[in-house]
C-alpha cells in the first residue's frame, strides 16, 4: 500500500507541478527546439483563458490566474516530496473539485474555449475527455487525502 501511495503521490504531485510550471514559466513547445522555457509568463493570456469560463464573479478571474499556479506548485511539490502529505492532498482535492465544476460549467453552457489546464502551452479545448481525466485525478487525490498518513502525526502517535 505504501508503494502504491508513493506512486500515486508522485503522479498527482507531478501533474500539478508540471501544470503549475507551464503556467508560471510559460513553457513553449517549438518544433525546432523541443521544450523551451521562455521565462516570459503569459499571465494575461492565462487570465483570459480563466475569464473565458465565465464563472462568476467575473472580477475575480485575474486573482485566480495570479494565485492558482503557485498554490498548485506548492501543493504538488509537497505531495511529491512527502511533506504535509494529507494537507497537500486535501488542497489538491479541493482544486480538482473546482476544476471539475468549472469544466462542467463551460460544457453545460456550450463554451468552445481553451482548457487552460496546462496554462497556454496546450491549445486543448474544454471537453468531456478533460472532464474524465479530472474525475480520475480527483479520485486519486481524495484517496490520498483520506488514507495518507503524515509522518509528523504518526510520530506524535507513536511517541505517546
Amino acid at each position, binding site marked *: 500500500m505504501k508503494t502504491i501511495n508513493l506512486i500515486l503521490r508522485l503522479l498527482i504531485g507531478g501533474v500539478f507541478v508540471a501544470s503549475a510550471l507551464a503556467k508560471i514559466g510559460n513553457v513553449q513547445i517549438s518544433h525546432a527546439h523541443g521544450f523551451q522555457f521562455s521565462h516570459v*509568463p503569459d499571465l494575461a493570456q492565462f487570465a483570459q483563458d480563466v475569464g473565458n469560463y465565465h464563472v462568476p464573479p467575473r*472580477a475575480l478571474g485575474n486573482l485566480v490566474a495570479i494565485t492558482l499556479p503557485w498554490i498548485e506548485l506548492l501543493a504538488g511539490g509537497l505531495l511529491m516530496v512527502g511533506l504535509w502529505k494529507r494537507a497537500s492532498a486535501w488542497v489538491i482535492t479541493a482544486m480538482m473539485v473546482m476544476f471539475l465544476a468549472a469544466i462542467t460549467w463551460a460544457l453545460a453552457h456550450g463554451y468552445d*474555449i481553451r482548457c487552460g489546464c496546462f496554462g497556454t502551452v496546450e491549445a486543448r479545448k474544454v471537453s468531456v475527455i478533460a472532464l474524465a481525466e479530472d474525475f480520475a485525478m480527483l479520485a486519486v487525490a481524495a484517496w490520498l487525502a483520506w488514507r495518507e498518513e*503524515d509522518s509528523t502525526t504518526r510520530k506524535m502517535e507513536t511517541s505517546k
Partner: protein
Amino acid sequence: MKEAYETADDRAIPAAGARPACTLRQALVIVLAGAALGLAANAVSPRGIPLLTPPKAPPRAKDVVTLDEAKALWSSGTAFFLDARATSDYKAGHIAGALSLPIDEFDDYYPQIQSVLTTDSVIVCYCDGLDCDLSHRLVDRLRELHYRNVRLLVNGWTTWHTAGLLTHSGTDP
C-alpha cells in the same frame, strides 16, 4: 485530545482520524503561502496583470463593422486587418491578408506593424468568439496611439471563415 486517538474508530482508520485540525491548518498555510507567492510574483513581473479583472467595455456601435462592410473593406484592398489573437491561433488560420498583432504581446509585434500603417489607415481588428475582448483591447490601444479609423469585426474569425471567405494559415498574411 489524547483520548480521541484511543477510540476504537480511530484505530480502525488511523489516517482518517489523525488530527484533522492540524491538517486543516497546514492546508490553509499551503493555500495562503501559494497565493502570497503568486501575488508577489505578479507584483514584480514586468508583465503583471491587475488583481481584479477590469470590466469589459461594451463596443461602441459606430466602431463595429458588419461582415458585409468588412468584406467590402477587404475587397477594396485599402484596409488593414489586424488579428488580435495569440500567434498560435493566427498560425492555425486567419483572414487572408490579415497581419498578426496579438494584444498580449503588443509591444513585441507593434513595431513591425507600425511601419506599414499611418494614423489615417483604415484598420479592422478582430479576434474570435462573441465574448472575446482581445480585439476590443486592440482597438482601444490603437486609439491611444492616435489611429483615427479603427474598426471592430465582432466574432471576426468565426464569422469570416464560416461565411466561406478567403482565409490563410501559417505565419504569412
